[in-house]
């Protein structure tokens, strides 16, 4: 397949189509809307299901319904819309049906604004609503990576019967970059052995998140926790840039990760050994590798487009032995390479004076 | 031979008495027996009078009642 220039939102949509998306339900919200708009003709042309729902709440429950029948399904939104999906996500998690969710984050809290942000980190990594559950969360930094991750997301969702969230700030949704689209998959006609399709010649099947008896609900939770443990073991992803000999390690994800790469390049020019650790899976967080790296570096700088949310995960991974500096911008402001460089330089100075 | 006959699944009966008030023959009453779940299931006082009208079954929320009716044998040639 040839490289083509794709807008992030549309690339995500097309890659989902190629991954075998059967049913899409969504609601417009900037900066995610082009994804829905693209599918509004693409899905119809392919005679697949597309519906603009009356709300995000309805959309996630439509997705829940479609997922119960074992087809590939997804929704997409941006921060306030994701908040409205929390109850539905908790039901989906408990019911163990596979669902893909795209969150193109914008500035918050509240209505905030439509500028890029990374401040849904806690919301997407810490819980799918109430109760104990974690979604598999993937954060691309380029349009190509967005394409590759969402294409894979459907497989992961099916394999683990879990929610997979592809989360990116508004920049990734809005920007254009060259990307190579993966091949078009044919849609599987046989459904998984848990799917609802009518009790034809077999026992009737039930998909529920209710377990009135505490021991049974605990058993469900144990199953979910086992799955989470397996995901932790198998699905850690990250990228590194100039980490081999890094003394200052910048930890950043998504757009911030690539911006940090530019910063580290600039720092190298000034003789500062900076490198970048970019978690791609936010859950499972790549804590092992980060802990290892933390033993090699002198200081860690966490940079986020938020007031510091991934910061928790970095601290959890690293403990208190290495000093962790945080630099974040909120409200839709994107920290630029030069301002991050200033922080790096300050850290560098402290290290040399300390 | 009575016109009708019903079979009550006593284990399901919750003694709600809904069937008793719709039976045109007034032949349904709660028994004194306790079933597994602590209810006193309905019983037929006089099966001979049952017409097999099925109203009890139409009314029963717990689907306890099976209904039979006597019909003339149709001879086919």
């Amino acid at each position: 397949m040839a490289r083509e220039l794709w807008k992030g939102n549309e690339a995500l949509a097309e890659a989902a189509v190629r991954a075998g998306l059967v049913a899409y339900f969504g609601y417009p919200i900037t900066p995610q809307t082009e994804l829905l708009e693209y599918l509004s003709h693409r899905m119809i042309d392919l005679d697949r299901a597309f519906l603009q729902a009356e709300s995000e709440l309805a959309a996630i429950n439509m997705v829940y319904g479609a997922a119960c029948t074992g087809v590939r399904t997804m929704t997409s939104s941006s921060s306030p819309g994701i908040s409205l999906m929390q109850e539905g996500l908790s039901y989906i998690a408990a019911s163990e049906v596979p669902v893909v969710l795209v969150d193109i984050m914008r500035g918050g809290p509240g209505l905030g604004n439509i500028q890029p942000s990374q401040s849904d980190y806690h919301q997407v990594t810490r819980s799918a609503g109430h109760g104990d559950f974690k979604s598999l969360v993937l954060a691309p930094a380029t349009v190509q990576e967005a394409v590759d991750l969402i294409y894979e997301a459907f497989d992961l969702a099916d394999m683990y019967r879990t929610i997979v969230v592809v989360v990116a700030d508004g920049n990734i949704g809005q920007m254009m970059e060259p990307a190579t689209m993966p091949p078009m998959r044919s849609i599987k006609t046989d459904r998984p052995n848990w799917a609802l399709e009518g009790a034809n010649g077999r026992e009737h099947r039930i998909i529920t998140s209710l377990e009135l008896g505490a021991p049974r609900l605990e058993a469900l939770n144990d199953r979910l926790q086992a799955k989470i443990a397996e995901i932790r073991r198998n699905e850690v992803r990250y990228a590194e840039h100039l980490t081999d000999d890094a003394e200052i390690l910048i930890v950043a994800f998504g757009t911030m990760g690539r911006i940090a790469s530019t910063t580290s390049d600039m720092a190298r020019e000034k003789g500062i050994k900076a490198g970048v650790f970019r978690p791609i899976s936010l859950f499972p967080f790549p804590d092992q590798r980060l802990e290892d790296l933390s033993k090699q570096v002198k200081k860690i700088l966490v940079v986020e487009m938020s007031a510091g949310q991934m910061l928790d995960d970095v601290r959890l991974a690293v403990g208190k032995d290495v000093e962790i500096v945080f630099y974040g911008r909120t409200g839709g402001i994107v920290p630029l390479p030069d301002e991050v460089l200033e922080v790096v330089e300050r850290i560098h100075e402290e290290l040399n004076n300390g | 031979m009575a016109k009708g006959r019903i079979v009550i699944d006593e284990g399901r009966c919750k003694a709600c008495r809904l069937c008793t008030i719709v039976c045109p023959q007034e032949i349904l009453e709660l028994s004194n027996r306790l079933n597994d779940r602590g209810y006193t299931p309905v019983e037929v006082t006089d099966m001979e009078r049952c017409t097999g009208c099925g109203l009890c079954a139409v009314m029963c929320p717990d689907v306890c009642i099976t209904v039979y009716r006597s019909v003339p044998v149709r001879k086919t040639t």
Partner: protein
Amino acid sequence: MHQSVVVSGFGGQGALFAGQVLTYAAMDTDHQVSWIPSYGPEMRGGVARCTVIISDSEIGSPIVRNPDVAIVLNNPSMEKFHNELKPGGILIVNSTMVSFEATRDDLVVIEIPGTDIATDMGDKRMTNMVLLGAMLAVNPVVSIEAVEQALKDHLPQRKQHLVESNINVLKQGYEKGIQAKAHSSN
């Protein structure tokens, strides 16, 4: 090679499209590229702006504080990027619409009456191509042929009939750019 180009104007002046054409041209001639629009409240205020990065290595940040090159189609854009361009930067100005005068002396400023030229050549909505052509003359980050090819390849079907006129305007802009460059280097 690593270059950042901003194209900025009112909505309707074709800033985003000019940026895209440049991006396509660079991509199709085997560069790394990224194109990112400003989106947000300015859009409502009628601003349209994009940043294009063209590079020979992987592109880190798709946005920059101080771009290398700016094509400014209107006054507010001129004010903004006259300030923000990096030292030695190139400023391509649509002088028909811009009254603000450059005062920085560490910039290469090329003034082209883009809207006039485009209007003369048939449609003022082609102002963007005049300015893009002029930029290519001063800053041959990609060849003009590559841009022509990009226009042919990527103008949507329903606009294919505009390819020729766009190319003509682009070329005209290129000429004017060559002249202006000669002039400015005097």
